[in-house]
């Protein structure tokens, strides 16, 4: 038996979480360093996964399979394809920066009781989320995936509700109430989505008799497993609903602005850059993999929903007065692009969507974390409370601008590559949808640049005058992220090499081939 690399990659943060939680109350700093080291070890392991993965090889690699719950037909089955590898890499890469950015977010107040250990809890919960997210990218058993998909809500819920943003406008009590409202809204939306998926998971079992992704796909391909059209569509809807809540797709998105607004900036990054990716990842792996026909049946509606998300999210972002909510609506717009890319059913679209997941994660992390640093200095989330920051804190303003430019997909930065691929892939099949989606780019330029202009340029506001520039710790968070954005912007090949074969498999799942560009060929014929 070979070394269970995938299990270890997920187990290290899980064990680290337990150890971190067990650190005594007085040893806060030790707990932080322990958690950071664990997350770095996980990054090394994720790097190993990346190195050991052969892009041209089998579809699922580094597989592991053990009996788990025989009565439910459940096995502990792991395996990664290129998409999984890319997202595991993203998760492992971002977590250390999330921790570093939130280094002081969970320090207890002076008045807290001695047994209350929020710092240990904060870092342990982040590691717990990391473990569950990584394992969910590895799971090739539907049931195992479902369990993680649901279970990761609980640590996220405590992270949102327990460690709110200390910068707020109203009184303490009001802030606490808003925060717990946001946490409950997050949990209920996702739990309801998950429970509907549970019904579909049970339904899948009664049809297929087991939960193995590979076995079911194989049985469907060679005709031993017939699924009635109606059944397949219902099951698809059950799964898709849960993923659309998580992703989040309009009109199931309303929990995201609340959650991202009330959570601390690092936790907001955790939500939108990491945990939500499980939703779009699962659309690719489970919706398309298990229900290819139903996916095609639903494509027109989903494409329309994705377009609405793109435009609606961008429009609302333009109208926001709160920096964090603005970024949240921008994310909704970007998730629209990802979903559009997936359901365009072209290889450019799907590679673009996968790259988009990674790039959006990094660019949002950069923008959100710098925004978090900004907000923690002034103690306000309102755009109107800022002005002229670039004169006082030029490095902060500069990194904020780069994060913003990445968000609006400036060529040369990573998100441009993915957004371009998504649009090309969409044009090839649905030209009209491509046109509508392009407006999202225009609006992105609007909301990012207006945000920058209002907060960073203009006359220096009185409250901003004494604002310190980025500290070394903060710079250590932002600089590497920007470096990655630049690198992937000019040289995305390592990522595309890994992702493209996986996308070909997904395309063959749904039995679609890329539409051949017809017009130029006809012209050539005509010329002859």
């Amino acid at each position: 038996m070979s070394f269970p690399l995938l299990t270890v990659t997920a187990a290290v943060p899980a064990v680290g979480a337990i150890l971190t939680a067990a650190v005594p109350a007085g040893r806060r700093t030790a707990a932080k360093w322990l958690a950071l080291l664990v997350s770095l070890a996980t990054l090394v392991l994720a790097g190993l996964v990346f190195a050991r993965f052969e892009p041209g090889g089998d579809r699922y690699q580094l597989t592991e399979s053990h009996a788990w719950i025989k009565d439910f037909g459940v096995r502990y089955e792991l395996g990664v394809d290129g998409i999984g590898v890319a997202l595991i890499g993203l998760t492992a890469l971002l977590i250390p920066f999330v921790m570093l950015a939130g280094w002081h977010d969970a320090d207890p107040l002076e008045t807290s009781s001695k047994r209350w250990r929020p710092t240990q809890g904060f870092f342990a919960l982040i590691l717990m989320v990391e473990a569950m997210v990584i394992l969910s990218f590895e799971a090739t058993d539907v049931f195992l995936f479902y369990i993680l998909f649901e279970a990761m809500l609980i640590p996220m819920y405590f992270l949102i509700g327990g460690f709110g943003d200390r910068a707020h406008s109203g009184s303490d009590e009001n802030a606490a109430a808003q925060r717990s409202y946001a946490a409950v809204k997050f949990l209920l939306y996702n739990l309801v989505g998950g429970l509907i998926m549970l019904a579909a998971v049970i339904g899948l079992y009664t049809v297929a008799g087991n939960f193995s992704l590979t076995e079911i796909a194989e049985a469907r391909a060679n005709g031993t497993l017939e699924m009635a059209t109606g059944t397949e569509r219902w099951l698809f809807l059950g799964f898709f609903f849960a993923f659309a809540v998580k992703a989040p797709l309009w009109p199931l998105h309303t929990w995201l602005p609340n959650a991202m607004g009330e959570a601390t900036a690092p936790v907001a990054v955790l939500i939108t850059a990491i945990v939500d990716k499980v939703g779009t990842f699962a659309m690719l792996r489970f919706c398309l993999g298990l229900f290819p026909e139903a996916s095609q049946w639903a494509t027109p509606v989903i494409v329309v929903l994705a377009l609405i998300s793109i435009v609606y999210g961008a429009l609302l972002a333009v109208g926001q007065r709160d920096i964090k909510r603005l970024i949240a609506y921008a994310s909704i717009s970007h998730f629209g692009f990802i979903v559009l890319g997936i359901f365009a059913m072209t290889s450019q679209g799907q590679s673009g969507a996968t790259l988009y997941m990674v790039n959006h994660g990094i660019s949002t992390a950069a923008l959100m974390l710098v925004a978090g640093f900004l907000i923690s200095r002034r103690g306000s989330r309102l755009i109107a409370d800022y002005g002229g920051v670039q004169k006082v804190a030029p490095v902060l303003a500069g990194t904020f601008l780069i994060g913003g430019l990445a968000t609006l997909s400036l060529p040369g930065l990573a998100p441009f590559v993915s957004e371009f691929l998504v649009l090309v892939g969409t044009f090839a099949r649905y030209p009209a949808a491509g046109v509508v989606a392009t407006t999202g780019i225009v609006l992105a330029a609007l909301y990012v640049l207006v945000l920058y202009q209002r907060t960073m340029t203009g006359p220096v506001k009185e409250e901003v005058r004494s604002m310190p520039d980025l500290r070394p710790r903060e710079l250590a968070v932002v600089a590497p992220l920007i470096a990655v954005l630049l690198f992937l912007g000019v040289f995305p090949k390592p990522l595309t090499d890994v992702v493209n074969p996986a996308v070909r498999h997904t395309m063959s799942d749904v039995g679609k081939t890329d539409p051949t560009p017809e017009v130029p060929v006809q012209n050539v014929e005509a010329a002859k």
Partner: protein
Amino acid sequence: MNALTVHSMWTTAAEPLNKIPAPKIEYVQLAPVLIVVGAAVLGILAEAFVPRRGRYVTQVFLTLLALAASFAAVVALAAGGYGTTKAHIAAMGAIAVDGPALFLQGTIILASVVAVLTFAERRLDPADHGHKVDSFAAEAAAVPGGDHEKAAVKAGFTTTEVFPLALFAIAGMLVFPAANDLLTLFIALEVFSLPLYLLCAVARRKRLMSQEAALKYFLLGAFSSAFLLFGIALLYGYAGSVSYATIAGVVDGSVGSVDPALAQTMGNDALLLIGFALVLMGLLFKVGAVPFHMWTPDVYQGAPTPVTGFMAAATKVAAFGALLRLLYVVLPGLTWDWRPVMWGVAIVTMLGGAIVAITQTDIKRLLAYSSIAHAGFLLAGVIAATPSGISSVLFYLGAYSFVTIGAFAVVTLVRDAGGEATHLSKWAGLGRRSPLVAAVFAVFLLAFAGIPLTSGFSGKFAVFKAAAEGGAGALVVVGVIASAIAAFFYIRVIVLMFFSEPKADGPTVAVPSVLTTLTITAGVVVTLVLGLAPQYFLDLAGQASVFVR
């Protein structure tokens, strides 16, 4: 004349007596029940003869010893193959010794052991007049607030009778799921109900509320018993027998011999349906299914919390066991007659329990309504009418009992000057003050809500899967919706504990003795083990899912 002839002059030889055959009782196979009954009788004697000082220790020791011995007997029987190949009907047709019976008896005994530990807890309340006190009244017969009560408290009396009472209740519960004729069923019902009525009435604090709860429970319980008995009479009229096997035979037409006295009524379907509906009502009352659930919140709230935990877990196990046997052994041929009704009951139970729970402000009432919702989930498994339906219900019952007892044990810890602080507003900020206790309670709540990696999820998945396979897909959808509603109020309690600021005059968390600690630990361990690695227990439930007939 010799003596013999003299004697024969004034006596006459009687007809030789028709020998009454001695009933054949398989004592060994009934050992689990007999041990508990014997210990209960000994416990009563101990009340009479052991000096007051020594009673508490004697009773606790005797009770735990009896339960351990009884559990050993169950395990020995199961290991001896009585759950599978040697399953048969013992005690002249009155008691079934088979897989489901042994599995449920084992579950009831284990749940009782954990519950009895909370009965014996004496560290939570401060000592009164220098005497350690538990959750039970100093002298239950004394008028609340009267001089007599004060004297009893001063003298340090304790109601150690609760232990033999609990043992009698447990004995009844052990018989209930194994009962193989309707009369045994009825007697078992009364044997476990009467001690429970009493146990509900003996709370040490809020005594009037406790007595009110007991009275309500008794009155409604008496009604339900009457329904059950009337139903039994009608079924006897229908089949000419109270034995499950004979009734089943008459239903499917394989037993045709007509008792001349009953020739008028035998085989009359109206009697069967009405009688069966009445029996079903009696059982649904005990499991707390809507619309027979009215007693649940009041009784759960008023009863001493250890008793509530015991009742919520063990009664439910016993009653569902009896319900399963009745539906699967007596009426397998009538599936189409009872299924629609049970569908309706399951749906209103799931939704009713979940919806009403949202408005509750008392933690005990909240758990009561949650137990109603769970009864609904269990009914979904019962309705499956397949072997996997039986095994899933057995598994769910085991998982649920430990979560329930654990949760109520945590409730006993959170106290203020008036005893347990059960109003939800007082739980605000508990997570700040006592992170460990709040975290443990959160685990139980998440298990109730059916979040993956807890036993609640495994159980819920098992029953929903069984229901879906048994053709009740719509019930699964309703169940999922009810779960979502239920999740809301479990989460609300977690929000309250962790995200609210603690109040200045909030309750304190008492540090329990090893007894309650053991109970809670057992609850947490079982919850997590059944959530992470349920396979062994699913196997066990699967092997135990064949009824003997």
